[in-house]
């Protein structure tokens, strides 16, 4: 029955419709965020489901957020970008390096260290929250390297917290790279560094980009770690820190919060769509041969 071409086309169309339906269903809450960003606060509370009457309110909110001197939004945007980019580079490259040597070295130490990284994913953040701040303070007074309220501290923190998951995932996917490829490289006279960066890493592109995206989302939207390490109201602020005051103790500026979320969403969507094509170009052809 499936061999009939007409049936296959009908099945494909049904699948397409189904997927579109699912996507729409998934995006309903986001749609609610969008329409509510273009309403006044009262309208949001009274009629969250209604379509906005005046879309220009959205523009007003955006300019309000962008130009508000208390928020310093553009500065926070730069800070968030710098921190996210450097943290991502650190996490992905260093984790890939670590995962590779942990995988290829079959010693007890290597297995123990790998298990240590994996086990750390289970640690609830509450346990390390305050000791972390205290330790950073002690470290910086002993070594003079500014850890708190600086880029260094927050980036090292992200690399530290992101490495467990990333190493775990790289480790899992690196197994599918046959030894023959690496051995061939050694035969050709490549040292370890060259083999890793020129042969292994390119093969891992799909999972590498996936790990970039997964870590990127978390870092971009993170509030708690920057609040602890960078501090609120200090010179270096990230976007979530900057827009946090929209949520008051009694009065919540829902309109500004929704708008702020949309503004933070744009770079993520752009990044995601750009990164997509690197995931698609898999290792399907060529490398195995």
């Amino acid at each position, binding site marked *: 029955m499936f061999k009939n071409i007409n049936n296959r086309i009908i099945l494909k169309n049904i699948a397409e419709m189904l997927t579109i339906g*699912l996507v729409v269903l998934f*995006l309903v809450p986001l749609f609610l965020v969008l329409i509510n960003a273009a309403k006044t606060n009262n309208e949001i509370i009274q009629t969250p489901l209604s379509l906005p009457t005046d879309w220009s309110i959205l523009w007003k909110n955006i300019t309000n957020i962008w130009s508000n001197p208390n928020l310093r939004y553009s500065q926070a945007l730069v800070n968030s970008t710098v921190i996210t980019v450097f943290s991502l580079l650190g996490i992905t490259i260093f984790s890939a390096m670590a995962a590779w040597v942990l995988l290829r070295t079959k010693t007890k130490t290597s297995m123990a260290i790998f298990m240590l990284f994996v086990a750390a994913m289970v640690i609830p953040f*509450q346990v390390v929250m305050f*000791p972390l701040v205290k330790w950073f303070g002690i470290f910086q007074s002993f070594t003079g390297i500014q850890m708190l309220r600086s880029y260094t501290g927050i980036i090292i*923190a992200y690399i530290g917290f992101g490495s467990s998951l990333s190493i775990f995932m790289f480790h899992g996917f690196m197994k599918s790279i046959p030894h023959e490829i690496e051995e061939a490289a050694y035969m050709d006279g490549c040292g370890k560094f060259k083999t890793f960066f020129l042969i292994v890493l390119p093969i891992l592109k799909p999972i590498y980009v996936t790990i970039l995206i997964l870590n990127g989302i978390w870092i971009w939207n993170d509030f708690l770690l920057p609040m602890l390490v960078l501090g609120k109201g200090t010179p270096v602020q990230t976007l979530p820190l900057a827009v946090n005051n929209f949520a008051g103790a009694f009065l919540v500026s829902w309109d500004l919060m929704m708008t702020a979320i949309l503004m933070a969403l744009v770079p993520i969507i752009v990044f*995601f769509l750009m990164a997509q094509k690197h995931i698609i170009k898999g290792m399907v052809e060529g490398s195995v041969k």
Partner: protein
Amino acid sequence: MSKFIETFKKMGNDSLNQDKRNQKIVFWLFLFPSLFSFAMVQIIPFAIGIYYSFTNWSATAQFSIDFVGLKNYFDAFQDPAFLYATIITSVYTILNIMLVNVIAFSLALLVTSQLKGRNIYRAGFFLPNIIGGIILGYIWQFIFNYFVPRIAAMAGFTYLAENLMLGNSNTAILAMVIVSTWQSAGYIMMIYVAALQNVPRDLIEAAQIDGANAWQRFRNITVPMVSQAFTVTLFLTLVNSFKQFDVNVSLTNGGPSTMFMGRAIKGTTLLAMNISDTSTISLNTAQAQAKAIIFFLVLVTFSLIQVYISKKREVEL
């Protein structure tokens, strides 16, 4: 002659040792950046945290920090809310693991097939992962408290039309499962997608030529190839479900109350939230540390077992 052979052997050994030494250097060099950062923010603070769990540390201005031995641990085990949280978190975790993985895998299959808009669909399923915090709570509370009853009334589901899901602790847990599945399905889907992209096309083509139909190809090629992704996703969903905090706080706030062991307690406070409440509401930060370490030990045991079993079933190329 024997001296020649000996020197020759030694030269060979030396180069072997040199090689070993080089390997060791590369090992530690490649490992160092991750290990250093990891030690700085996880190992050392965790060790400090373990120390604090044996004291009366409060993280606030104390006159002195005193050693109390295992008191915090004993108290933790006797706290009914902690016991309840353990039970309810286990239930939530089992439901969540099943739902998230089934949906994420199905979505991954859909978006790696030949559908036209698959890039956009991929983005669409993944976007929910971006929404969190009080906005997530606000939107979904509205959906459950106003949207769902109205739709249920129109469709004739009287139970849902008259009873709010968030108004009863049992259905509120289901609501949490739904919301966290919505939030993380796309995330897990991305991992399955990466794995599915790894399936070598020539293997599939060869099987097609050999006459295997779609289901056989799926079962005998795709599924084993994806099994290593499965270890990762199973582990992630297990750990993330057990650690669930964000959706818990923003959606149900610890939940409507329920009766447990003869008293009224908050009905959907999962473990992570119970630990946090022990610190911020009960003002017993040291006991929160003890609870967190118990939590860690329990979960680490479960997940290491899970990883071990999964890795055994994996197919290595």
